[in-house]
């Protein structure tokens, strides 16, 4: 192995840190999957595991700081005239450590120490509004809050006690003419189209003056939870989310000429904004709204990759919602940051 790479790996991850990471994974698995004490949630486990790449980010920041104090930038010029070698090795080292950390996250499950929780469906409240058209047709407007997986469906409770339409003639349909026939005493199940899932909003309408009453408080969105074999895929998504962040950290440090710890904090802020699920709400006006709008603008400037970090109890809402173009854009951003990091810069004076 390249001595530079070997040195970087040893410096970032000495045995004390290796033990800490192993203990952290064991604790996370115990808190999540233990038969009597655990939360029995794959999302919670993924949330605990996602802390480790962040720790790694700050750890690399502190190593970069230490190296700067030891005069590494000056030595790098002597070692390699193009200035590519050190940042490339740091990036490869970061990728190796990130991959190893996430592989370690699979160990408690793969080893059979803990069983995976049974996959069930997540049920989420839905915001509903009603409007009436000129012909008396009522429109049901659903706001799902954000992009949801394509496998999601709406479950609607319809009150037939004042219905003027017979069950044979009753229809609930969308503007694109997809329709479902409601049956008295059964939930109306509406499978979302790709566009509805992406936008997170949809409109349904029953027959004109049908007398069907939608029970607003009982509308739910059902999302099938990823099954046990989804763990490697979800961890790979975390890998894709965090990898460009390490390149951004190196770019901040080398191009921005700022301390490694400050670079790590700035990268952490970018990651927090990138992981923010945007909900279509009216932000209003005022200084707070202006700040929120600024954050939304930064978020919109980044590729939509919040689905890559599908963690927490509501992880099924985010899992598998990231478009491939978004992933490509995010990786390209990382590539650009790496290119910036490898550009020859004269060392700092003093």
């Amino acid at each position, binding site marked *: 192995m390249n001595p530079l790479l070997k040195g970087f790996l040893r410096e970032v991850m000495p045995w004390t840190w290796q033990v800490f990471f192993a203990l952290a994974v064991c604790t996370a698995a115990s808190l999540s999957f233990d038969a009597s004490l655990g939360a029995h949630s794959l999302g919670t486990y993924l949330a605990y595991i996602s802390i480790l790449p962040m720790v790694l980010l700050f750890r690399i920041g502190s190593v970069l700081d230490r190296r700067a104090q030891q005069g590494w930038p000056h030595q790098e010029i002597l070692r390699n005239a193009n200035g590519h070698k050190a940042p490339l090795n740091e990036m490869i080292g970061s990728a190796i450590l990130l991959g190893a950390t996430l592989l370690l996250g699979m160990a408690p499950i793969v080893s059979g120490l803990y069983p995976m929780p049974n996959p069930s469906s997540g049920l989420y409240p839905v915001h509903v509004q009603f409007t009436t058209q000129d012909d008396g047709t009522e429109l049901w407007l659903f706001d799902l809050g954000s992009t949801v997986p394509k496998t999601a469906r709406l479950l609607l409770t*319809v*009150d037939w006690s004042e219905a003027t339409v017979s069950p044979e003639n009753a229809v609930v349909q969308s503007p694109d003419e997809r329709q479902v026939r409601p049956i008295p005493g059964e939930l109306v199940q509406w499978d979302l189209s790709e566009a509805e899932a992406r936008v997170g909003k949809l409109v349904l309408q029953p027959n004109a003056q049908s007398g069907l009453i939608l*029970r607003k*408080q009982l509308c*739910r969105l059902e999302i099938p939870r990823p099954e046990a074999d989804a763990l490697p895929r979800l961890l790979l998504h975390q890998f894709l989310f965090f990898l460009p962040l390490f390149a951004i950290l190196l770019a901040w440090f080398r191009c*921005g000429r*700022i301390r490694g710890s*400050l670079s790590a904090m700035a990268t952490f802020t970018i990651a927090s904004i990138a992981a923010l699920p945007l909900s279509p709400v009216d932000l209003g006006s005022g200084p707070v709204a202006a700040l*929120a709008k600024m954050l939304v603008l930064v978020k919109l400037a980044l590729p939509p990759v919040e689905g890559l970090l599908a963690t927490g109890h*509501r992880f099924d809402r985010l899992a598998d919602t990231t478009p491939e173009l978004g992933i490509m854009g995010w990786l390209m951003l990382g590539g650009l940051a790496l290119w910036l990091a490898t550009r020859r810069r004269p060392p700092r004076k003093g």
Partner: protein
Amino acid sequence: MKRNLPSAGQILAIGLLLLGLAGASLGTVQPLGARSWQGFQGWWTLRRFHQAESDGDLPAMLELGKQHLQLTGQGDALEFAAYHVAYGASGPSSNRLPADALYWAQTGLQALEESQDLLPDPWSSLQTQAYTLVERVFPLTYDRDDLYQGLRAIEDRLAAGGGIVQSSSGLSQLYRDFLTLPDSERNPFILKRLERALIPEDE
């Protein structure tokens, strides 16, 4: 005197950091790792809920059930607490004074109603609501609104066929039978069904 001005990179990094901090304090941005903290809080709340259950601390059970729902989106703890408080603690076997029994029944119901918008499986809580109103609250208040509210909750449960978790073709058929009746016979029909469910067939 030599003065070091901050570089463009430093200004940008600090500006971004301040923007993130302000966003986090306003709740617009969730810092990375916040979901892990929420997961841990949810786990800890459930541990405290079980402790309150073994201590028989009814108000704490309700409060922790609500907290668990807020943190994790799971309603099992709250539904269990509400059933325990509203239906169990107000029942004849609890040997409480009528005013005390009514207080607990209404407290449990209030917790359920306040959280109905958030409960993942609202159809199962309708059953607790209906039975508490009809069997516990109405005999103590003789308020017709309480009775009708209970009947309404059961009607909603029937309209959903029992909901997604406890769906039953029997409930769906019951709702179709209910719809064939004239308005004046609908409430007595549901009440009769409720009473039949409350009293086992062999008694």
